[in-house]
C-alpha cells in the first residue's frame, strides 16, 4: 500500500486496503480548520465497510477514510475528521477526539490504535514531502487536501492527483469513464480494480528481505563458526568489529585465541549503565559468548522511530547532519527516513567450506 497516510498507520506488511470513503463536508466558511485522523482496530469478525458507515453516522465532522484488513484478517479503518478552530487548534482536536470517544461507545470491541492531527500548514508540508509544489495547491481547502491523501492510497501518485485537479481528470491519457472530479475519478477506478497493483509480489519481496534481515539480526557467530574461518578472514572480521591492530596481533597465529577475542565483545553502550536490564543484558551476552552478525551504526536512531516524526522535523535533522537546506527541502519523506536512519551491515564474510 502506498501513500503518505499509510506511513502514519501502524500496519503490518501484507495489510490491504478494502475500501475508501468520503462524506459530505460541512461549510466552515473562512474559519481555519484542523484535521484529526484515527486509526481504529475493529473487533474480531466485524465488517469494516459497515463499521465505517456506522461510525461515520455518529461522527458529524468526519469527511472520509479507508478501511482494510491486516495480514491475519484483523479489520481496521482510518477515519478523518475536520473541524473549525480558533487559534492553536487544540479546541478543534478536543472536539473531534470527544466525538470519537462517544461514537466508539456504540462499538465497545473497537479501539483506537493511532491518532494524528494536521493543520493546513502541516498538510501542505505532507504534500511537499510527496514531491508536490506548494504553489500547486495554494487554492486547495482542507477537505481537498484530505481527499488527495485518500486518493493517493488508491495507488495514484499525489503529484498526478494535483496535476489532474486542474482539468478535474486524474487520468487524462487513459481511456476511462471520467467523473470530471479528480478525486472521484481515482476512487471510481479503484473500486473497479483498475488501480490495483500486484501487492503479493511486492510484499513477498519485502517480506523476504525483512525476514532475511531479521534472521541476520538475530544471528550470532558461535565459537565453532568462527573457527571455520581462515586466519586472514578472522583477522579481517576482528578489524571490522573494531579491535585494535595490537589486540589482533597479540593473538598471533592462534585461531582459537582470535575467536575468544571476538567472543569477548558485548554491547559497549550498556557496560556503564546502572539499569538492571542493561546489566542483565551484559551478563547474558557474556554468558552466551557470541558475536552479532549485524551491527548498527551508533548514534543514529532506527527507522521505525523516525517514521513517527513529522517531515519538517526530519528535514531539520538532515540539515543538522550536514545536508544543504535545498537538498533537505527537496527530499521526500521516505528518502529522509532512509538516509537518517541507522544503517545495518552484516559483518564478516562466510568462510569458504573446504570439502576435503
Amino acid at each position, binding site marked *: 500500500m502506498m501513500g503518505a497516510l499509510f506511513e502514519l498507520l501502524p500496519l503490518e506488511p501484507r495489510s490491504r486496503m478494502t475500501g475508501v470513503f468520503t462524506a459530505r463536508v460541512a461549510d466552515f466558511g473562512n474559519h481555519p480548520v484542523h484535521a484529526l485522523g484515527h486509526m481504529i482496530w475493529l473487533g474480531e469478525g466485524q*465488517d469494516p465497510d459497515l463499521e465505517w*458507515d*456506522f461510525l461515520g453516522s*455518529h461522527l458529524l465532522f468526519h469527511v472520509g477514510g479507508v478501511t482494510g484488513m491486516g495480514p491475519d484478517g484483523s479489520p481496521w479503518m482510518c477515519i478523518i475528521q475536520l473541524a473549525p478552530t480558533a487559534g492553536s487548534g487544540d479546541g478543534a482536536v478536543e472536539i473531534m477526539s470527544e466525538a470519537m470517544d462517544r461514537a466508539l461507545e456504540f462499538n465497545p470491541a473497537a479501539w483506537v490504535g493511532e491518532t494524528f492531527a494536521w493543520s493546513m500548514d502541516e498538510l501542505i508540508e505532507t504534500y511537499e514531502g510527496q514531491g508536490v509544489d506548494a504553489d500547486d495547491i495554494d487554492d486547495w481547502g482542507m477537505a481537498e487536501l484530505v481527499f488527495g491523501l485518500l486518493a493517493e492510497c488508491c495507488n495514484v501518485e499525489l503529484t498526478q492527483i494535483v496535476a489532474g485537479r486542474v482539468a478535474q481528470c486524474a487520468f487524462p491519457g487513459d481511456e476511462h469513464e471520467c467523473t470530471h472530479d479528480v478525486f472521484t475519478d481515482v476512487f471510481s477506478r479503484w473500486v473497479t480494480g483498475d488501480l490495483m497493483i500486484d501487492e503479493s509480489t511486492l510484499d513477498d519481496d519485502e517480506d523476504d528481505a525483512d525476514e532475511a534481515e531479521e534472521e541476520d539480526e538475530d544471528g550470532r557467530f558461535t565459537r565453532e563458526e568462527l573457527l571455520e574461518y581462515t586466519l586472514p578472514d578472522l583477522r579481517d572480521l576482528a578489524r571490522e568489529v573494531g579491535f585494535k591492530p595490537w589486540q589482533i596481533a597479540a593473538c598471533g597465529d592462534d585461531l582459537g585465541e582470535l575467536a575468544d577475542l571476538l567472543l569477548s565483545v558485548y554491547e559497549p553502550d550498556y557496560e556503564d549503565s546502572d539499569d538492571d536490564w542493561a546489566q542483565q543484558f551484559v551478563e547474558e551476552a557474556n554468558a552466551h559468548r557470541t558475536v552479532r552478525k549485524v551491527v548498527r551504526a551508533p548514534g543514529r536512531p532506527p527507522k521505525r522511530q523516525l517514521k513517527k516524526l513529522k517531515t519538517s522535523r526530519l528535514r531539520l535533522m538532515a540539515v543538522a547532519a550536514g545536508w544543504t537546506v535545498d537538498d533537505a527541502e527537496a527530499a521526500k519523506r521516505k528518502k529522509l527516513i532512509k538516509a537518517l536512519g541507522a544503517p545495518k551491515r552484516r559483518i564478516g564474510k562466510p568462510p569458504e567450506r573446504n570439502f576435503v
Partner: protein
Amino acid sequence: MATQGTVRLAGYGGAALFLRCVVVPAGVETAGQEPIEVVFDITLHSPDCESNYYLRDADPGFMAAFAEFCLAAASAETPEVSVTAMSDRSSGLEVSVVSSEPTRVGLLVRIPRELDASPIEWDAMDFETSRAALAQASLDARALLGEDAWSVSTEPPTEWN
C-alpha cells in the same frame, strides 16, 4: 464480537440492535429450581435516538433462536421470503427480514414499549445490515451460549423454512 455478555448487530446509517445478558435473582415462579436466571437488556439504537428495554424476560432458547435467525438471514438467497421472523413471546422482541440484496439484508426490529399494555404500542426500527454482520452476530450469540463457532450448522433449522 461478543463483548461483556452483549451481542451487537450493527447496521448502515448508525443503527444497531444490542442484546445484553443480565443475571438476576430467580423469579418467584422459578424459586427452588434455580437461584438465578438470565434476562435481557434490549436496545434499539440509532444516531439520533436510543430506546432501552431493561430486564426483559425471554423464552428458553432465546439467544439460540436469535443466532439461528441471523445465520439464516445471512445465508439465504431471499431471506425475506424463506426466513420466518423471529418472535419471542416473553420479551416481545420481533425481528424479521424485509428485503435483501447480494450483500445486504433489510431488517425490521420491533418491541412493545410495555408488555402488558393494551393495545400494544410498538417501538420499531428498520435498518439494513450486511450479511457478514449478520453471520458474525450469529457467531457472537453462539459464543455467549458457550458453543464452538465451528460446530454451528450452516443449515437453518427446518422450522425456519
